[in-house]
């Protein structure tokens, strides 16, 4: 058993830490301290506060520290609190030093007992001593104060920037600047005036700290008069701590009781258009250089606001009339891609540093399917509805645009990606509300990518990032929101590389068919071949379709791959005619071909090129293919059938298995999926399904081929049940053309199950 109580041991360990870590700076010392305290007390949260600033906190992600809650906990020795994500916790706090540093410990579950409270107090005191000993506390305290001051300044400036970027009315922005100046500079009176902007902009004047009729009087003073007038005429910051004397020297009547004044010019388009001035009634008040700096920054903000207001005015004017048409999408009347990019560019240029700008890239899920299923006019109505729902979901200051097709964008100034995500969630929610067009009900969903501006990012790049995130949303199941992160772009690059490799591979003839024979189980001879694409990659070796098919499908490169496989398969088949004149071949084609009638010509040309009759070629189609795309598919299949080409349904029984399409489409064979074949001889249900498929094929006069036959028992079962064609590893895997030629040249049978 332990010889000392646990708390003594904990404290001993804790004290040792400081001895060991004396060489550490305050930051590392506090970090290790909170780790140790948390470990010793089994606590979820340990925080250090200096006055009201949290200088160190364990137990919350950095962006989710509940400052207010910790402040409250620091004020009392014990309390019970509700903490988001943790639930009810017990808190204990202890002074780290007399200089306002407090340690707060939160623990879910058991309350702190006396011994534990003592331990917290001892540890806090030990930390305080260690910090004071090296003067680190003072450092930290000064740092905290400076941080707090800087934080306040930047908060205040950010507020002003926000009102500018949110396009608040100019008067409102000016008021926030004068109010901000009064607080930041502890000034008694602050005035801001701007002239010469036209359209009533002369009326822009704001005054803080001056009651009643002050504003009217303020407006009446010519801008180039008096002490502050020097800032207007000279274009520099002016400052005085003896205002009465300086004003008298300039021949103007000094304002009552004003002691110190400083003033700075406001610019627009290279000209001085206004002045901001601050005044103090405090005797002996001197405006310090940092305070002058703050006033200059506020004047810059006023300049920015004026420029922005003027530019928006100009842009709005120019957008009217003809330009509107060129810059907007005719269908939805939303700004088009070019305009959206201009707006983003403008926002990026004119938004002050630190004010975020977020972009939502919105793509309607499965829009193409809707369009194909219900026609283009239905699709157009859907797009108009999407535009309308987007407008109603976003904030007034957000810009909604249509980029192309079913892709929309929302430009949201002044909000971070996190807030934009909430906005995007609102958008996705709105979109999923049921929609009825021409009496046809449907439900939409959208995939949304969110990206936030960052230093140095162009409008194209920002939009591109949102696009990348949207792409991720698509691939992670649609109907969701994804915020951009850098890794996603890397993935995109990888995919882009792969896409390029596929293109190059196509040119270099690296996509080749492998052939898997299907056997006639009665004669033991090869009945037909299935062509399966392989990528003979120059560095990665022979690749199976799962390494490239998905991307090839997405990018449309699959069309070229299929064509090359079809061509080469037909070429080989023509060559093998001498070995087996009845040999047929089946080729898998992507669903994309069945939306384009060109495929008919291509097949006809290829057959003619190799002097093959159409009946030597089978095309494999899937159940979903024929279900999704009715009229056009049917027409293409019929045209191909007229060439003699036949169709087999791949993986029969795993999709919709609608009997209607078996009747409607010119189908000649069914392939029994390996999933069912696996269970032959062991699973009664699989056996029943396979029996049913064989009978169905028989009744419709279709051939039936079992896929994935791996055991002699499965083969035996199939023969007994009347399925005479089979393919699978039992006979041969897919092999190269050369290997297949050897197989065909040898008189082989399936006596022992293997070729």
């Amino acid at each position, binding site marked *: *058993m*332990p*010889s*000392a109580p*646990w708390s003594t*041991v*904990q404290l*001993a*360990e*804790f*004290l*040792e*830490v400081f001895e*060991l870590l004396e060489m550490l700076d305050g930051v590392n010392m506090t970090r290790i301290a909170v*780790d*140790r305290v*948390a*470990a*010793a*007390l*089994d*606590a*979820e*949260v*340990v925080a250090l506060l200096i006055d009201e600033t949290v200088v160190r906190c*364990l*137990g*919350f*992600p*950095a962006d*989710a520290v509940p400052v207010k809650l910790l402040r409250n906990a620091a004020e009392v020795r014990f309390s019970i609190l509700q*903490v*988001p*994500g*943790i639930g009810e916790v017990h808190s204990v706090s202890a002074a780290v030093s007399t200089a306002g540093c407090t340690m707060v410990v939160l*623990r*879910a*579950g058991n309350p702190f007992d006396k011994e*534990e409270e003592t331990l917290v107090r001892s540890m806090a005191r030990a930390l305080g001593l260690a910090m004071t000993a090296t003067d680190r506390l003072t450092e930290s305290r000064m740092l905290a104060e400076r941080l707090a001051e800087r934080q306040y300044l930047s908060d205040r400036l950010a507020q002003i920037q926000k009102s500018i970027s949110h396009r608040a009315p100019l008067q409102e922005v000016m008021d926030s600047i004068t109010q901000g100046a009064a607080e930041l500079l502890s000034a008694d009176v602050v005035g801001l005036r701007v002239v010469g902007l036209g359209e009533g902009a002369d009326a822009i004047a704001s005054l803080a700290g001056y009651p009643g009729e002050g504003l009217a009087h303020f407006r009446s003073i010519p801008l180039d008069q008096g002490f502050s007038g020097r800032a207007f005429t000279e274009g520099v910051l002016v400052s005085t701590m003896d205002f009465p004397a300086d004003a008298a020297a300039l021949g103007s009547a000094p304002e009552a009781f004003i002691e110190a004044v400083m003033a700075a010019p406001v610019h627009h388009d290279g000209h001085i258009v206004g002045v901001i001035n601050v005044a103090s009634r405090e005797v002996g008040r001197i405006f310090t250089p940092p305070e002058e700096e703050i006033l200059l920054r506020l004047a810059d903000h006023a300049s920015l606001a004026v420029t922005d207001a003027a530019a928006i005015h100009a842009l709005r004017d120019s957008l009217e009339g003809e330009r509107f048409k060129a810059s907007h999408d005719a269908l939805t009347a939303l700004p088009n891609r070019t305009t959206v990019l201009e707006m983003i560019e403008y926002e990026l240029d004119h938004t002050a540093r630190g004010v975020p700008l977020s972009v939502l890239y919105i793509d309607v899920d499965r829009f193409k399917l809707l369009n194909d299923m219900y026609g283009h006019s239905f699709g157009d109505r859907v797009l108009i509805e999407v535009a309308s729902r987007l407008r109603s979901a976003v904030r007034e200051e957000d810009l909604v645009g249509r980029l192309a097709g079913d892709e929309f964008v929302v430009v949201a100034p002044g909000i971070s990606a996190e807030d934009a995500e909430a906005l995007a969630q609102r958008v996705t929610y709105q979109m999923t509300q049921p929609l009825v067009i021409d009496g046809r009900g449907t439900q939409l969903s959208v995939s949304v990518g969110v990206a936030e501006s960052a230093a140095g990012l162009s409008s194209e790049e920002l939009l591109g990032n949102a696009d990348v995130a949207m792409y991720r949303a698509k691939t992670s199941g649609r109907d*969701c929101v994804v915020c951009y*992160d850098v890794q996603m772009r890397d993935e995109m690059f990888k995919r882009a590389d792969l896409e390029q490799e596929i293109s190059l591979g196509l040119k270099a003839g690296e996509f080749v068919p492998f052939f898997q024979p299907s056997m006639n189980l009665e004669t033991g001879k090869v009945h037909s071949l299935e062509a399966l694409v392989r990528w003979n990659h120059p560095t990665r070796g022979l690749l*199976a379709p*799962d*390494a490239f098919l*998905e991307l090839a499908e997405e990018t449309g490169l699959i069309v070229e791959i299929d064509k090359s496989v079809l061509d080469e398969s037909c070429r080989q088949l023509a060559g093998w005619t001498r070995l087996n004149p009845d040999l047929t071949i089946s080729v898998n084609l992507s669903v994309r071909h069945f939306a384009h009638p060109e495929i008919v010509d291509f097949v006809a040309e290829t057959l003619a090129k190799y002097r093959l009759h159409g009946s030597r070629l089978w095309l494999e189609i899937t159940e979903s293919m024929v279900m999704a795309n009715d009229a056009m598919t049917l027409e293409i299949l019929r045209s191909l059938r007229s060439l003699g080409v036949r169709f087999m349904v791949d993986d029969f029984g795993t999709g919709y298995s609608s009997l209607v399409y078996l009747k409607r489409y010119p189908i000649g064979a069914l392939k029994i999926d390996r999933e069912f074949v696996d269970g032959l001889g062991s699973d009664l249900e699989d056996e029943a399904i396979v029996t049913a498929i064989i009978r169905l094929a028989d009744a419709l006069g279709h051939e039936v081929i079992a896929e994935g036959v791996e055991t002699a028992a499965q083969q035996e079962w199939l023969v007994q049940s009347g399925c005479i064609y089979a393919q699978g590893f039992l006979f041969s895997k897919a092999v190269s053309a050369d290997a297949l030629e050897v197989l065909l040249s040898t008189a082989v049978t399936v006596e022992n199950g293997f070729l």
Partner: protein
Amino acid sequence: MSAPFEAAQEAVQSASASLRAAGVEPVLFVAYAASTYDPELLAEGFGLAAAGVPLIGCSTAGEIATGGADDGGVVVFALGGDGFAVEVSCQEVNDGDLRSAGSEVAGCVEQLARRESTVLLLLSDGLAGDQQEVVRGAYDRVGAEVPLVGGCAGDGLRMERTTQFFGSVALTNAIVAAAITSDGPIGIGVSHGWRSTGGSMTVTKSSGVVVETLDDEPALDTYLNRLDAPAEVRVDAAAFTDFAATRPIGLIRRNRDEIRFVAKADFENRTFTCFAEVPQGGSVSIMEGDAESVLGATDAACSGAVETFQGSPPKGFMVFDCIARKGVLGEGIQREISQIADGADGAAVAGFYSYGEFARTSGSSGFHNQTLVVLALG
């Protein structure tokens, strides 16, 4: 033993097939493989067979599956269905900074749209340094809201090199993670079954994971003498590791002893190394356990994991079982596996014998040694 590439593919495919047979699409594969396989070939097989579904995994000191414990195989756990969503990540440990690596790898939680319950699964390289730092880093990032679970990769007690798998990539000196969120409950059970042999010692000198002196005497001698270790153990590194595997030390903590696996002896400097920090100034004692206490812990961990399930059966059990427990149980290992299977109540079980276990459900600490950690997913 079959070829690594094929073994990996087969294990993923079979896990995937059993899930798909139930009409469920996999969203995550967690793979455990013997360190005797070529890790690169394994990874290729994993990546190919996973076909785009996230896969993480590691090498082991033995694999655990519903069918029983294995040593020298590949076990793949497939998690699937609409009820779960997963984000994965991996991070190599740079300059020994496990805390930063832990924090980086935990970033995957932020990418997840969290549902009813969420957990962060970590598989790390137990030979990379103080694993408590991994927990600290991950905790810095995700806070108290998300429990942490997982284990340290093994290499069949050779203590040379472990592997972490991330899709088709084999890494070493890395952490892989999966943030799992579920519409149902998620529970974690932790138990070790070791008892103090009495007579605590003060850690008079230690630096990180290396214990230099105990009660002012060379730590290695104190440890060996207290245990009356046989001669071979005093000179042979492998014999020492075997011997120490069932004789951990315990750090005295608030409601429990924190177990530390004694991994390696330095016969020259008379020190020994643990898998996590042993703080200077603390008190430790040597722990002991037997088959009964270890099996008792098995039940406790299993029932702890499903405590919040309110009787509904779990969908899967992942277990992280310290290799030393296997040492104690010896041939009785099958009993532990069947106890776990009972606890899983028919759910799939997969796991491995590890070099340290992660489980943080309360407090901020969460690295364990010689412990059984059970993650129940509902």
